């Protein structure tokens, strides 16, 4: 389903996050991270956070990480981010 949606998005020029559940990640400097289309969190500590997406997970590492706001649609993270790592679910 995801693959088809991505192809349609590619052909029509519509942003892929609109028609598929692919995550959209916006970062402002190293202090703020805005994530859309998430599926919740797997783990949160002061130094790291693991966020679940439909396609896998993302691990963000840093200092004093907090979830400033969290709804079903989006998540706003605050902290001093150092590194990111993406793990894809093998299909």
């Amino acid at each position, binding site marked *: 389903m995801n693959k088809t949606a991505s192809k349609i998005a590619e052909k029509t020029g519509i942003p892929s996050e609109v028609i598929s559940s692919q995550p959209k990640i916006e970062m402002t400097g190293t202090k703020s991270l805005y994530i859309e289309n998430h599926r919740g969190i797997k783990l949160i500590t*002061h130094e790291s956070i693991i966020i679940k997406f439909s396609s896998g997970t993302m691990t963000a590492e840093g200092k004093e990480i907090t979830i400033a706001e969290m709804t079903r649609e989006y998540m706003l993270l605050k902290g001093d981010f150092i590194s990111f790592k993406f793990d894809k679910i093998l299909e």
Partner: protein
Amino acid sequence: MIYISKLWKFFNGYVIISIKGYNIEKLINKALCSGIVIRHIKKDKNIAEAELLPEDFKAFAELCARYRCRMRIVHKNGFYRTLLFMKRNALYTLGIFLSIAVIYALSQMVWIIDIMGNSAIDKHSILETCRNSGLYELCNKNSPDYKKIAEELRIKYKNIAWINISLKGSRVSIRLAEDKPAVKAVTDSEACDIVSTAQCRISYVVTEKGTPLVKKNDIVKEGDVLISAQLVPAGTEENPVTDIVRAKGSVRGILKRNYSFTIPYSINKREYTGRRRTAVFIGTAYRKICIKNARPFSPGEKSEEIIQLRLGEDCPLPFFIYKNIYSEYIEKRVNKDIETAKKEASVHITEFIAQNYDISSDILSVKTRYSEGKECLSVNAEIISDENIGTEKPHTDTGGSTINGTTENSGSG
């Protein structure tokens, strides 16, 4: 935008909770699926802290119980909570509102009146005029008509060329520019005589311009013309000049002055005991409130000290601390012998000469005569001096007359 969201959050109210457990992430995910909005989630080890909306609290508490997490309320905040707090602490609320009211009332007053640009006009005189027009320290800043006051000041002081009164906060600035009187240009073409300032015997005459009417050893009265502006031809010139000029020259004369005074043999001298009392008042320039009262000594001396309160160097406040310092003294009778009185008289004469004689004057002699009385020593000093006696006076046709003089130029004496 952040501020609006914070304000919105404050009006809605929020609860800060602490969650303890091992399935916090799962709990948060479940809460999200249930439509519960969670903010500011922080987690350290197995304790998390988060913000919840009051309406989600009950649902979240049920979820906590299901996921075996312990929840505790850390803090409740919001507009409604604040209102409740204020209702319960009426005195505190009253204090806050009173403080706001006092700050507002104080900000409506004129605290400082600055006057800039005045040199000939006295500052206190301007302040007094302003006071009569309703502008004074601690008056309501909105009540005076500043344009009218500026106009009144301009009418009262004719030498004000420009004036502006502006209000900045609680400070009124009066800025003005004064008319500077045009300096009268003295030209050589202006006809002037040199006249005598005192009755004396001439000791020295040098004429640079004009006709000398006196010579050495002539005796002149006050106001006599010494050097005339009218040029008088000698008769030997080919083209005789009879112009009226500005007389220039130096004329010195020998003057005799008498100075009489008395030195009492015994005087009352104040001896301070060291006892002091201080009365302290606080107030404005027009009103005082007594903080500490003190009774004056009898006999005693009173001295005043005024300290203006200020916030830093550039911000004087319209409040003053007035100190009246009373010092006690004892009057003691001190007797002097004749020699001491004569010495004192000598010092007195020296001081008189230093104060009353010009630096260019030469003191030729001082003859002192003493007459001993019962209670005091009478002193008469005859001071003979050689000094400049010529001063410029606009030329008149009448001229002057000498008592015993001729019209020949004597040169130097």
